[in-house]
């Protein structure tokens, strides 16, 4: 490691005297405008989704409600169908009528 003497230290501190200004890139303004545009879009996007948790909970609740509703409705319908199918009175009567099963015989 190099050690500096006091004279050198003073020279080092003065080395920035007369420093020239550095130039930012030629497209500084264009890049800045692009960045601002991006930020604007992000802001709009974040505005839409600022209620995100609420939106997710509401959507899920709606989905669960629709599912439950459909399930209950379907179960009711199937109960009715089974009930209807379990007493096919007309069909049995017609069948026995057609084959004369309800007539009494001597045999």
């Amino acid at each position: 490691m190099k050690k500096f003497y006091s004279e050198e230290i003073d020279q080092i501190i003065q080395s920035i005297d007369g420093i020239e200004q550095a130039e930012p890139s030629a497209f500084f303004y264009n890049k800045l405008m692009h960045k601002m545009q991006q930020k604007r879009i992000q802001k709009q996007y974040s505005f839409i989704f600022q209620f995100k948790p609420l939106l997710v909970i509401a959507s899920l609740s709606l989905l669960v409600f629709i599912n439950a509703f459909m399930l209950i409705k379907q179960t009711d319908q199937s109960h009715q169908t089974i009930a209807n199918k379990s007493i096919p009175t007309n069909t049995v009567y017609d069948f026995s009528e057609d084959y004369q099963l309800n007539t009494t015989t001597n045999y």
Partner: protein
Amino acid sequence: MILKETKLIKDLQQKSESAFKELVDSYQKMVYNTVLVIVQQEQEAEDIAQEVFIQVYMSIDGFRQDAKLSTWIYRIATTKALDWERKKKTKKRFGKILSFFSNEDERVYEAVDFDHPGIQLEKKEQANVLFKALKKLPDNQRIAFILIKMEGLNYQETSEVMNTSLKAIEAYMHRAKINLQKIIGNQ
């Protein structure tokens, strides 16, 4: 000059795009150079300088004109640059902690020696030593030193940017020089 500045501020408050372009054209070099010597990385300095102008655009309505526009912009620029440095230090510390727990290398790499493009070739080596030492100064002393020695502001203007008294600036500069001598001497 004051009238021109007042008109520019008024136009900016009305969100005039031409006024904003005028502002950027007038102050981009000043902002970029101030940020550059603080963060000592060209690409990062440009990003931060852009953030400074976005901040100016967004908060110009709240600018009370009790200071010059340039003073206010210097204030935003130095604050943003120091914030960036703090975040970088936190990230570095966090990276070190993470590297203890994972096999992957989480280190945040330090940039190599900073080469300011405005330094004369024969002074580059000495300037590199100074820039390295500047990083070790306390923030107040460093900002005062940068604004006075590099940006060419006088003590009064610097006190306005740093929102402190003239005496405090004199003290910062005095201590900055002593500390730089110590830091460089011990390098």
